[in-house]
């Protein structure tokens, strides 16, 4: 799981152009939206694309994102249970 969390952090940094950040800067338990990384709605869409592109996970209901994108740790847990690639 630690390896997946680290890889996920790298992918998030790349996909969302968080150029000033390294994986070490991201607390996997911190909120991705709001107070945490301060991501916006376009970032949420980009995370949905990231999950489909890298892990073969297609969210049927975008509202699922509210739960899945709570933190990197929650996201990694969801990916590990649902990934198809």
């Amino acid at each position, binding site marked *: 799981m630690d390896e997946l969390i680290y890889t996920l952090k790298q992918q998030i940094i790349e*996909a*969302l*152009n*968080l*150029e*000033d950040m390294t994986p070490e800067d991201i607390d996997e338990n911190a909120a991705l939206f709001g107070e945490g990384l*301060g991501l916006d709605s*376009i*970032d949420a*869409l*980009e995370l949905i*694309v990231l999950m*489909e*592109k890298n892990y073969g996970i297609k969210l049927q209901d975008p509202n699922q994102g509210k739960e899945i994108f709570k933190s990197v740790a929650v996201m990694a847990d969801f990916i590990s249970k649902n990934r198809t690639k």
Partner: protein
Amino acid sequence: MMQHTVHITPESVVVDGKVLSHQEKGAALLTELYRKHIGDYPKFFKMDTLCRLGFVASELLLQVEGAERFVPREDRAVVFFNRNASLQADTTYQATIQDPENFYPSPAAFVYTLPNIVTGEIAIRNKYYGETLFLVIENNDPNIISRQLENTFQDPQTQSILGGWLDCTDENHFEAQIFLIFKS
């Protein structure tokens, strides 16, 4: 009456006629300018090159103006011109949908596939509620530009315009030649 000017190319930065020293070139130059002279707006890193160019150029311009910043105002318009619209963002987005086997349209790339996004970025940053306009024209033609500026000043609300030429074809080919002009 033109009060301040900024000219940025991939290799040079001139503010009110004075050359600004820098190390980098091309897109890296815009990041260097952001880090050295601005640095408090992480959204910069999400922008396409056209928006980064307009954002950095406008920041340098407003810094030399020296007026109080971020106060809501309706008397300032943002009017830009270029030849290549949002070509770089269009190309970036197209790359995400080019291959049917690897078809993942990027929302983050898509949102910049209009040139007038940069006028919005600047207006939002500075709380400008006046007119915003981005015209795509054949060349950097002073006659067309001055005619449009005159038209913009026909609006009695508009007392100043942040505007000029803002063109970008890729990360290494761009030019900002912008100004702050006041109603005479």
